[in-house]
């Protein structure tokens, strides 16, 4: 029964886009064929997976604070800080072999993102400063910090003054997975999803985070430190977002520059919700969402639709999914503290 409702909601959502395509002067069948091509061509799937990698990483990390009712809107800024830290490693150790530099980048990206996430957690836990506001503001600050670096001290002297760092040496770039044109950030994403799933389901911390999410007083009664849990959850979440930043600068962009992320931190929030805060679900939902985003390219290029039309398409699908989710979920409660 529930599955039938979900299916019909997706169909309804897709169906609602038919008038949209007609108004835009496009054959709806051709439109759906374009969307399908994303999932059936190598090029489409490769692109969808590549685009999903940073989204998956952030969404996986968001499971921790979201389960506790702590609204981390700061994935974007934590991503930028991760990119910054990864670049710092490259600039400090430009001649390192891959076996050293890549793990260093991963480690420090995680740390940087984690620390960036700790700050709003601390402000909330100690001073009751609302985390939606602080995490949001810190996104802007992180983005401007990276701007400052790439316009100033880290600017490539050979770069004609453009705001970018030197290109990363080959050793510092995430290698492609042999056989397919996707960088190994995918492996990091998959590993992270499994790791987080493991932590949430089988460790004490994971258990405590889930309990604290259901009821703060229950957590306190059971002797858990709410403060510590909040800090831990946000550190982990920030860390995975930082990792996402690392995969971007080391897997796609190959340097640090202005604007490395077009809002993945915010997209990941939607994906985490779609995944019901389950890290394996985040993997699947992230891939599907990557497909949805790439289908936007297909619609634009294959059919000449304007980008704004694509946004409407995505928005409509999302709205119907939200609506239907209700019926399958019945009583999902999200508590803002």
């Amino acid at each position, binding site marked *: 029964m529930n599955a039938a409702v979900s299916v019909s909601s997706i169909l309804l959502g897709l169906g609602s886009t038919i008038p949209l395509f007609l108004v*835009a002067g496009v054959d709806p069948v051709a439109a759906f064929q374009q969307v399908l091509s994303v999932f059936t061509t190598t090029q489409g799937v490769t692109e969808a997976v590549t685009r999903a990698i940073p989204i998956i990483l952030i969404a996986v990390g968001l499971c921790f604070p979201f389960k506790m009712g702590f609204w981390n809107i700061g994935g974007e800024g934590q991503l930028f800080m991760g990119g910054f830290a990864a670049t710092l490693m490259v600039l400090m150790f430009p001649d390192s072999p891959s076996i050293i530099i890549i793990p260093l980048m991963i480690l420090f990206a995680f740390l940087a993102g984690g620390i960036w996430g700790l700050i709003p957690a601390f*402000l909330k836990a100690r*001073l*009751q*400063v*609302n985390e*939606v*506001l*602080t995490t*949001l*503001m*810190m996104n*802007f*600050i992180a983005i*401007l*910090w990276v*701007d*400052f670096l790439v*316009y*100033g001290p880290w600017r490539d002297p050979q770069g004609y003054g453009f705001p970018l760092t030197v290109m990363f040496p080959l050793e510092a770039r995430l290698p492609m997975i042999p056989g397919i044109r996707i960088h190994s950030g995918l492996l990091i994403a998959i590993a992270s999803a499994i790791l987080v799933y493991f932590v949430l389901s089988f460790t004490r911390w994971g258990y405590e985070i889930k309990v604290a999410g259901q009821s703060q007083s229950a957590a306190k009664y059971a002797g858990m430190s709410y403060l510590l849990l909040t800090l831990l959850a946000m550190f982990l979440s920030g860390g995975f977002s930082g990792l996402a930043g690392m995969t971007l600068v080391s897997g796609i962009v190959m340097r640090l520059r202005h604007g490395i992320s077009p809002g993945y931190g*915010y997209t990941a*929030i*939607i994906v985490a*919700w*779609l995944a019901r805060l389950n890290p394996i679900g985040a993997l699947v939902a992230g891939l599907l969402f990557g497909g949805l985003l790439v289908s936007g390219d297909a619609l634009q290029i294959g059919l000449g639709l*304007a*980008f*704004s*039309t*694509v*946004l*409407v*398409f*995505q*928005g*409509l699908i*999302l*709205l119907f999914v*939200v*609506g239907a*989710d*209700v*019926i399958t979920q019945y*009583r*999902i*409660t*999200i*508590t*803002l*503290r």
Partner: protein
Amino acid sequence: MGFAVSLLAHAIQAGTPLLLATVGEIYSERSGVLNLGLEGIMIMGALTAFLVSFRTGDVALALVAAAIVGALLSLIHAFLSITLKANQIVSGLAISIFGLGVSGFLGRPLIGQIATKLQSTPIPLLQDIPVLGPILFSGDVLIYFSIIVSLVLWFVLFRTKFGLNIRSVGENPSMADSLGVNVDLTRYVCVLVGGVLGGLGGAYLSIVYTPLWIEGMTAGRGWIAIALTIFAVWNPLRAILGAYLFGGVVALQFRLQAIGIGTETPQLLLMLPYFVTIGTLVLMSSATLKKRIGVPAALGNPYVRGE
């Protein structure tokens, strides 16, 4: 002195769209409904106002149309969140995406066009008061409206029965329900208020502040307004302070750049509004704790009778 007066006048202009959107969002959130669709609502308001002004030349009609369109968009969110009890965060995000897309879609033919703008109407006599005159009384009707509406809505929220109902619905809906308050209706009204004011905030951008239509011209103001709602501690009076403060700091950092301060590292200067916002919130937080003003307890939770 001239610098300060001019800066304050500028701050009020820059802050007005934020103020309108913020006060509307305050009402929505006070009743327990988080509306993250504000960006979409504002941009649709901007588009509608421009479109109507362009087609008819009637600015008043343009403003009314923007308010209606804002209300309609927020109605979708209300239906999803209140009646269907869907997840409010994602519903709001979907509305934002949807609104951005529709506005771009419908706005294509309007690129490069000129519409009638709302002229400023300084209040005679009052505008000549030194200092206060140029700051407060030399603007346009939307500025005056935004201030009056904020004051009125503050009064309603804190001094009337309806306001009490709103607050109780936001804090403890089941108790409000048992006392006979229609929870769903109250929430619908509040979300619609948010939509109306959000639409007007967007309209301000396209027919007053920077009179043109360009895709995405709200440039994230909807998100700033959501942040300001928290900054204002869900109090319309504080919203006035917050909106003008934020608008003022943005203007201030350009003023500082213009007179040569901080231009060697302008990014750091650009961070100023965000630091100020966090800093002020931190400072206020201890006061908040003492007065126990805070998030409406039921914010984000759909209400189901019998829970």
